[in-house]
């Protein structure tokens, strides 16, 4: 928890007496502590929902204040009030409200800065072939989406992109999405998954190396739970494993320092991937499918993932397992099923390879993870738990 080479001092906690730098320092400190707490919260002897909720709310509050500060800084830079900063703050300022719009807004905000970061980020991102295209595409998609939501993004984003300092607040936007997954995994642990299993030793979790290093703990818990729960047909488990597995897939193509990119791409990549794969040659499909089916425990790297994903899309479209619970139009079905396969892929990776041949396993995990619409597990869209998120996806698909 030492901030990058600084000797850690506890800054004065009297808000009035703090300079902005001290405030920022404390903010970072509390942020790191909160993330660390969440990460290890599942290992507590007495997992407490109240404690987890309070930590999540604190994280939200920190990201809110950061966004406000960044927006103010950006507005100041531009020397002219756009309606964006207050609007953005307002959008983020409803933590307690069930506001589906909030999540898309948050993720949308990440798009253009992501693009900027993707451009500006140095060598660690060599392996990140998928993400930059993600980001560009995503920026476009999210731009459209932002228009739909009513945010005024672009001005703010550009301001952010110019300043790395304010860019450091971007992870916090992604953190809002992280928080949503925190709470989902909370439900997993309380409602009946496997959080805090003391007696049987937890199955060896595939460490999300970059995620855990960055204390982006939200991924770790559901991911671990997913590994343990693969045999149980519970949608929370599916949700957690879907989400966590998606993280796993992304992880191998990430640099350790890519907290920003990591969370952004993992949370938001889905939105762009359907755009990305529009014109992938599906002739790879049949050949690859069998390989994919056999890879029970495999964690495809980003590149492999991309190669396999188109194979899934065709097979899915041919399989009848399109969940009717998703009310997408049939014209969008290739992309629809592609997205499903995207979502379902992580759980697939945790499946026992010996149990089923590839096709049936792909359909089996469709049925595995096709609960009613309102609770469909959308992993990378850790946010995509409500119908409105899926409606948004429809909009994106149609536009693409």
């Amino acid at each position, binding site marked *: 928890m030492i901030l990058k080479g600084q000797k850690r001092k*506890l*800054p*004065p*906690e*009297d*808000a*009035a007496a703090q300079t902005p730098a001290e405030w920022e320092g*404390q*903010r970072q*400190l*509390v942020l790191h*502590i909160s993330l660390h*707490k969440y990460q290890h919260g599942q290992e507590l002897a*007495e997992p*407490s*929902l*109240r*404690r987890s*909720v*309070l930590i*999540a*709310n*604190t994280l*939200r*509050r*920190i990201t809110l*204040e950061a966004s406000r500060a960044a927006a103010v800084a950006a507005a100041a830079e531009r020397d002219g009030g756009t309606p964006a900063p207050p609007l953005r703050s307002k959008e983020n300022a409803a*933590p*307690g*409200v*069930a506001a589906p719009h909030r999540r898309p807004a948050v993720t949308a905000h990440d798009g253009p800065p992501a693009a900027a970061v993707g451009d500006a980020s140095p060598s660690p991102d060599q392996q990140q072939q998928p993400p930059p295209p993600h980001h560009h595409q995503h920026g476009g998609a999210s731009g459209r989406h932002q228009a739909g939501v009513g945010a005024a993004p672009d001005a703010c984003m550009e301001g952010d992109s110019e300043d790395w300092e304010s860019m450091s607040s971007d992870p916090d936007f992604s953190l809002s999405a992280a*928080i*949503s*997954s925190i*709470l*989902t995994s*909370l*439900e997993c642990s*309380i*409602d*009946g*998954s*496997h*959080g*805090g*299993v*003391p*007696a*049987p030793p937890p199955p060896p979790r595939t460490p999300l190396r970059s995620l855990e290093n960055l204390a982006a703990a939200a991924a770790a818990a559901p991911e671990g739970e997913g590994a*343990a729960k693969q045999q149980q047909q519970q949608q929370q488990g599916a949700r957690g494993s879907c989400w966590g597995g998606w993280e796993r897939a992304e992880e191998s193509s990430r640099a350790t320092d890519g907290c920003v990119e990591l969370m952004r791409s993992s949370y938001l990549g889905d939105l762009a991937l359907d755009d990305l794969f529009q014109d992938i040659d599906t002739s790879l499909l049949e050949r690859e499918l069998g390989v994919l089916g056999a890879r029970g425990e495999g964690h495809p790297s980003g590149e492999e993932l991309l190669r396999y994903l188109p194979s899934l899309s065709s097979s899915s479209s041919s399989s009848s397992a399109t969940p009717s619970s998703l009310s997408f139009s049939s014209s969008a079905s290739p992309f629809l099923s592609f997205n499903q396969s995207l979502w379902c892929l992580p759980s697939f990776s945790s499946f026992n390879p010996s149990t089923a041949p590839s096709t049936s396993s792909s359909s089996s995990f469709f049925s595995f993870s096709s609960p009613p619409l*309102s609770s469909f597990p959308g992993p990378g869209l850790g*946010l995509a*738990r*409500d119908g409105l998120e899926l409606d948004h996806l429809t909009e994106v698909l149609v536009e693409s």
Partner: protein
Amino acid sequence: MLSPIQVLCSDITSLSLEPEPFASYTEADIISTVEFNHTGELLATGDKGGRVVIFQREPEGKTEPFSQGEYNVYSTFQSHEPEFDYLKSLEIEEKINKIRWLPQQNAAHFLLSTNDKTIKLWKVSERDKRPEGYNLKDEEGRIKDISTVTSLQVPVLRPMDLMVEVSPRRVFANAHTYHVNSISVNSDCETYMSADDLRINLWHLGITDRSFNIVDIKPANMEDLTEVITAAEFHPFHCNLFVYSSSKGTLRLCDMREAALCDKHSKLFEEPEDPSARSFFSEIISSVSDVKFSHSGRYLLTRDYLTAKVWDLNMENKPLETYQVHDYLRSKLCSLYENDCIFDKFECAWNGSDSVIMTGAYNNFFRMFDRNTKRDVTLEASRESSKPRAVLKPRRVCAAGGKRRKDDIGVDSLDFSKKILHTAWHPAENIIAIAATNNLYIFQDKLNSEMH
């Protein structure tokens, strides 16, 4: 002027009041709840190991005016056992979260005890007579040889050594997905409620296979969860009213006559946040850890991390009185967040006449606030300072940089592992029970033994 009358430690056999080198205790001995019954004659404690120990006050001796009733062990029993939920792969702790006594209606005493998931109704009864002189069996219970019976006798009841029998009468299980944090018996003596993090259920004491859900704050989407229920209590004499507190610092008074599901509150008690005192931890420290109705039913006492507040039921927008319990911790919130102390849930208590409130703090300190004189005192529950008949000396914590007197303790010297979370006040007299980790301290105000 409080004097210790007893220090009862977890090792029940050695009720020595001499200060001893601090014996090691097991985690299971940590006291997790303390509750007097409605007359104050009985005091029940629950611990982390699932045991309940009931103390009974000895009647005052006439000869020695100062040997006012000590509390002796009346009964010990294992209330809850550790369980394992196979479906969810979760261990269910046997720690007793709350004990509540039922008003006494016959010779037996009844109490409710709960762990995270299951509530149990226990009957505590005495047996001090037994029948002797059966015709068909002898004193040991063996069947007599008929040929030896020459005459008939009527069995008579003869006194025997007092035996306290505790038996489980009801088990109220499988109604809570989340951890039960409160139970409260209704004034109608027929129903009670149990509250977990997201739901409150209403039970009938006689029916174990059914309960009614009266409050449900679980959002449709768990991602939207930002608030949990932290405590709940029925009004002391209006059987339709109850209050529950939340982690966001709000209190909701609900009327069960309004609707079957009381999600919509009748009154919402919330103090607006002080903008000058905002910090990252504002919400955490505003989380209400305990709520208690006054005996008069007019006021509410709440405890959040740094303060205790008295609310008037007729005024929702701000508390009537706010008492700073340990404001010197305000500058330490970040460290307390780091070591998790900021999540400690302190309880609070009224005295019998609602003139004094009490709550615990760190370093085995506890605080009492007189509402009328506005005076407050900090006392310590420790073996060294608790010799019998000694008078407890007020303690003072000096904030960093403040004037320091002898015997003051600095904020940085406080022991945050010694916390007094559970306290109880006798319903009629100035006797208090303080749970300090594995020790139970009972103090009495000798000079002012009656309420005023």
